[in-house]
């Protein structure tokens, strides 16, 4: 009977036609993926070199780099560059602050303090609310005329702000709302990571005389590095492709445009021409790719096996 097992190992799916079954099964998701995801992505790249229009029956021609030239060397290119700068600011601030705060809160909640489930739920709640509701809530909080935040500012500093109507501050407030909204998500991932850290490591550390910071720095942090990687990636990609909260709060006014917002705007509100938004998407993709690759390389170094 031993040979059967050997054959099984050599041919885990059997012999002859049977060998193709896994491939056939894979065909279904592959087909769906190609039709609905990979295909359109490749088409976007191709379209970015054409003057394709959102009109049935209209023909299109290859125009070389014209769309890219229009993006970076035309009348409003200054705004495009500012969108890119805004996107990078948005990404850095959101990634760093959101993960920092989330990690801090996750570590505190993980101390098994009373009512940790309640806190977990409270911090996660904004994620469930959805962008429209969040924008509405903060729109009311930040109402410059009668809003509670302005009253607080007035009482504390004798100062009033225009919030989402201010050229200098609106973007900062959007970043704040974005972090407020998604912090719970990062926190949950950190919590999952924290709970998988074996307790005996802390005990061993305790015997060796570590203090709280040392045990966090040398035991907790290296062991939750995988969650850190995941959170970094999620917040980088998330922040880079955010346009919904901008749309719902300032609608891109008052210097709050990002690349993702521009893509949305050019695609759905601009002209029927799809070449320019395609080119914009390609640039956005390249920038995201660059940062994701760098971030993955950096964080992977810190991960340890246990």
């Amino acid at each position, binding site marked *: 009977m031993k040979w059967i097992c050997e054959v099984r190992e050599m041919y885990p799916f059997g012999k002859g036609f049977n060998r193709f079954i896994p491939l056939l099964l894979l065909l279904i998701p592959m087909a769906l993926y190609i039709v609905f995801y990979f295909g359109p992505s490749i088409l976007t790249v191709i379209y970015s070199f054409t003057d394709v229009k959102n009109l*049935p029956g209209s023909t299109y021609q290859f125009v070389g780099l014209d769309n890219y030239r229009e993006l970076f060397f035309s009348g409003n290119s200054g705004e495009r560059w500012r969108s890119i700068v805004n996107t990078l600011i948005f990404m850095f601030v959101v990634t760093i602050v959101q993960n920092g705060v989330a990690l801090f809160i996750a570590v505190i909640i993980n101390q098994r303090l009373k009512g940790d489930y309640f806190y977990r739920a409270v911090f996660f709640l904004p994620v469930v609310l959805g962008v429209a509701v969040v924008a509405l809530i903060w729109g009311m909080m930040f109402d410059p005329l009668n809003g509670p935040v302005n009253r607080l500012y007035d009482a504390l500093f004798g100062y009033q702000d225009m919030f989402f109507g201010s050229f200098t501050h609106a973007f900062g407030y959007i970043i704040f709302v974005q972090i407020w909204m998604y912090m719970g998500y990062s926190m949950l991932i950190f919590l999952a990571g924290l709970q998988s850290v074996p307790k005996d490591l802390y005990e061993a550390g305790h015997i060796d005389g570590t203090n709280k910071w040392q045990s966090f720095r040398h035991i907790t942090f290296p062991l939750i590095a995988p969650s850190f990687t995941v959170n970094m990636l999620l917040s980088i990609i998330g922040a880079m492709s955010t346009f919904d909260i901008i749309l719902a709060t300032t609608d891109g006014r008052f210097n709050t445009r990002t690349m993702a917002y521009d893509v949305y705007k050019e695609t759905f509100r601009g002209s029927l021409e799809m070449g320019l938004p395609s080119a914009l998407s390609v640039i956005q993709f390249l920038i995201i790719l660059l940062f994701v690759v760098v971030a993955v390389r950096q964080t992977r170094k810190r991960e340890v096996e246990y």
Partner: protein
Amino acid sequence: MIKKLSALLLAGALTFSLAACGSSDSADPGGPAKGDKKVIKILHWKQDNINKAIEEINKKFEEKYPEYTVEYTTTGPDDEYKQAQRARITANDVDVLADLSGMRLSPQEWTPGAKVPDWQQWIDTGLIADLSDQAFIKNYNANDIEKAGTYNDKVYAVPTGKVAMSGLFYNKEIFEQNGLSVPKTWSEFIKLNDDLKAKGITPIVVAGKDVWPLKLPVFALQAKILGGGDQQKWIEGVWKGETAYNDEEAIEVLEKMKTLQDNYMIDGFMGIDYATAPSYFATGKAAMLADGSWDAPTVAAANPELKFGYFPLPATEDAAKNASFVGKYDVTWYAAEKGPNKEGALKWLEFFSEPENYTTFVKAAGFIPTQDNIQTESDFIDNELTPYLGEFELAYEIMMINRQNIGEHLAAEGVHTEFLAPGGPYKTAKELADIQQKEWEAAAPK
């Protein structure tokens, strides 16, 4: 063996399902039918008062022509509508569709490189029906059809009404109590504002948060000041390099708006959104509201007791020149050439254009009629708007044709006074004007 069989079955199922994709449409009988009735698909944006009137007209239509069913779809306004419009017209899935202020921004010979607007591309690709020979077109004022329904000497659209944009709603009670009257010139207007301020009354409220409402008073200034009152000449001039965004007239426009923004508008107007601005005015928190005439029903609803009027913002010292509104055409109907039921679309437009039905519509919408001899029975239209309709001019936003890739200080056919201090980064009108001219030149076709 069983494995082999299941694999075969699976492969078969796969190919079958793929094949099924290709022929799924053939089951459709083709014609637009709901039961025995022919469906007319109408696409419009959500606007309560207008939607109700159209639904009423649709009901009457279905009673008169029982062979038709009207499928009236409304989407959210602005972008959402624009998307729906594009999707449906290009899929030939609509018969009658509304557009806002139809037939504008069409490139001219003096606008090299200007973008061809959606509606023009639709007409050029044969998606819009030619209405030139339809009898119902004659129900409308020939001048309005010419201005807002004609392209290449053919009629493609029905402009259903006009709205004034350049006026200010004013609280009659506040004006009377303080012995103030409607100003006829710019200096009278400034004096009025000062008088109000001296009595502790906020003169003007405007919805700055949405930014576009700031354009409305500017339209009055632009129409009366640019080109010495000939806006078209100025706009052509700016394309040809004869006039400029930082010439004397253009700076005067910005300067005057800056005066209003700095001194006479309610504190924090950049934080007031369009939906709430009328309530500030209706509850007496400000004496005037800068808003379009279409918002009169909203103002009335916010405070049914309020007595209010509407006067054109007096842009210059010439009282006669000031005494007319600047505005635009509002809802404009197109019929789809390749829609499922073109014949039904024409029938519906004909029915809509019958004076009786048109009156129902125009009364509910609060528009200035584009058909002659319509009794709107509206105090507001008859007493507040009509006296100033003699020299009705189209707003800058409608007449201006922008260059492609124009910078943000001129985008969306506006001059964006929100960029002026204190809220915005530019301290003086001249600074903003210089940036605008620079952006205009930078966007010149290469």
